[in-house]
C-alpha cells in the first residue's frame, strides 16, 4: 500500500521521532493521517500500519475501536460535526443539530445516499467561547446560526454539482 508523496514523507519522519524501537507510538497518528486518504480504516490499512510500525495486526485493530475519530466505514465527502455539549447547548447547539439533521434528512452518524454529507453530533471540540461550533472535515466554523449553516451546506452542494 502506498500513500501520497507528502504522506510518505510525513510517515518517514514520524517513525524517526520516537525513541529507537518504539515505533508502536506511530500507530494512532499514522491511522488518522492515512484515513484521510483511504476514506476509512480498512483491513488493508490495518495490516499496512502494523507492518510499518512493526506491531501485530491486533495491536492496530484494538485502537480503532477506541478513538472516536477513527472509523471503519467511509463517511460522507463532507463530514458535518455539530457540538451540543453545554457551552454550545446554552446558545442553540442542540437546535442547530436538529435543524441540520432535518435539512439533510439524516441522523447521527448517517450519510446521505449520494455520499456528499454525513452528520455527527459530537462532544466538545474546544471552541466553547465561540459557540455554537460546527466542523466540516477539519475546518472550524464559529458562532454558527441555522442560516449560516444553510448557506454553508448550499455552497458545498453548488461546488460539487
Amino acid at each position, binding site marked *: 500500500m502506498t500513500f501520497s508523496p507528502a504522506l510518505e514523507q510525513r510517515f518517514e519522519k514520524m517513525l524517526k521521532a520516537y525513541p529507537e524501537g518504539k515505533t508502536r507510538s506511530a500507530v494512532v497518528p499514522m491511522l488518522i493521517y492515512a484515513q484521510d486518504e483511504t476514506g476509512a480504516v480498512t483491513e488493508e490499512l490495518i495490516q499496512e500500519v502494523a507492518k510499518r510500525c512493526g506491531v501485530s495486526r491486533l495491536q492496530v485493530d484494538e*485502537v480503532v475501536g*477506541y478513538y472516536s475519530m477513527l472509523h471503519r466505514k467511509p463517511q460522507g465527502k463532507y463530514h458535518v460535526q455539530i457540538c451540543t455539549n*453545554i457551552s454550545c447547548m446554552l446558545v442553540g447547539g442542540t437546535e442547530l443539530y*436538529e435543524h441540520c439533521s432535518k435539512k439533510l434528512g439524516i441522523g447521527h452518524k448517517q450519510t446521505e445516499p449520494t455520499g456528499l454529507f454525513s452528520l455527527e453530533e459530537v*462532544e466538545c471540540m474546544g471552541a466553547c*467561547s465561540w459557540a455554537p461550533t460546527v466542523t466540516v472535515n*477539519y475546518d472550524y466554523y464559529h458562532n454558527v446560526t441555522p442560516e449560516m449553516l444553510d448557506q454553508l451546506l448550499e455552497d458545498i452542494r453548488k461546488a460539487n454539482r
Partner: protein
Amino acid sequence: MTPTIGKLYNEPHPDETRVLTWRFGKPNSWKIDTYLADGGYQTIMKALQMTQEQIIEEVKTSGLRGRGGAGFPTGLKWSFVPRSSPKPKYIVCNADESEPGTCKDRLLIEFDPHQLIEGLMIAGHAMGSQHAYVYIRGEYRFLIEHLNGAIDEAYAAGVLGENIRGTGFTFHVHTHSGAGAYECGEETALLDSLEGKRGVPRMKPPFPAVAGAWACPTLLNNVETFSAVVPIIRDGGAKFLSYGVPKSGGTRLLCVSGHVNKPGVYEVPLGMDTMTFINGIAGGVKGGKLKAVVPGGSSCPILTADECQNLPMDYDSVAKIGSMMGSGGMVVMNEHTDMVAVALRIIKFYQHESCGWCIPCREGTTWLKKSLQRYADGGGSEADIDIIHELAKNMLGRTFCALGDAAAMPTISLVTKFRSEFIEYLKKPRAVHQHELVGIH
C-alpha cells in the same frame, strides 16, 4: 475554511493582564522573525546559564500551578523527576484540550507557538531531556500543521536541533496527533496513547515523573503551564507570583462561554473577583439574571449565583467553597437555564468518554445517564434525586483516574443545589433533547 490564522477570536479587554498573551494580535505573532524581534529565544539562553536547581527554584517561587485542571504546584512536580537517572528523560506537553468549556491552549499554539517551544526547551534543560512531544487532539489538525510549521522554522533558524547556537544543548520537539478521546487528557492515559495503545489510565505509583513515556522519567504539563515558564525565567518567579495571590501565582487564561455578552478567552490575574470578571470583562450576563456558573470546565461542581458573590478566582478560594478552578473553562448560565437538561448533557458526555477500564466509572456514568434521561423525559420521581445523588457519591474516589470524579462532582452539585428545581420539574415535564449520542462505536 478554517478561520484565518492570526485573526483574533475576541477583542482583548483593557482590564486583562497579558503576560502570556501579550503578543496576541500583533501582525504575524506566530512567525519566528517577529518572535525573535520581541526578544524571543533569549530566555532559553538565560536558562542555559542557570543550573537545573536554579530553574526549578524559580518555577517554585513563581507559585505556578498546573493549568490543565489539577492545579498541582509546577515547581514541585518538576522536582520529582529523577534527573540523575541513567535513562533518557522526556518532556510531554498536553495539548489534548477536551474539557467542555475550555478553548485556551489552542490560542497559545496559534498566536505564540514559539513561546511554547521555548518553554519546552527550558523544561528540557531543567530536566536534562533532549526530546519533547506535544500531544494535540486530533480535531485540532490545523493547529498540528501550524505548530509543525513553527517547529520547522525553529530548526531552520538554529534554535532547535543539535548543539543549539554552540551551547552544547540539544533539543528536539515533535507533534503527536490524538484521534478523539477525552480520556487521553488524563496524564497516564495520554502516555499510553503516546505509546500507541488505547488511552486507558495507569495504576499510580509509579508516577510519570519516575516511569512515564516508554517507562522513562517524564515531565508532563499543559500548554499554558509550559508557556508560562518563559515569562517566569525571563522576568523572575517573584514577578510572576506578584500578578496573582500568594498560593496561586500569576495570571491565567479564562475561557468564558454561555450566557454572557462578551464570551471569549481573557488573561486575568489569579484572585480576580468572579462577579467583577463576569460583569466587566465578560460584558455581563445575557438574557436574564445570573443563575449558576461552572467555574473551570464541566467537571467542576457548579456554583449558584449567591456563591459567586465576593469570590476571588484563585485555586484555594474556589476550593474552599467546594469547587475547582479546573482548566479555566467558565460556563455562565442565566435564570432561564434548565438544570435538568444541564445535568443530563454533562453526564452524557462523561458516559460517552468513560474509557471503560474500571467498573465504578463505566457502570456509574451509564446508570447516572439512564436515570437522568428518564428523569428528563418526565418518568422520574422525587426518590430518583436521592438515588442519583447516592450513586454519584459512591463513585467518588473509587476510580482509576479522575474521570469518575469528574462525572460525579457536577452531578452531585446539580441535584443538591438545584433540588427544588428538580422537584418542580416533575410537575411540568417538558420536551427535552430526545435523541441520543450513540456512544463508542
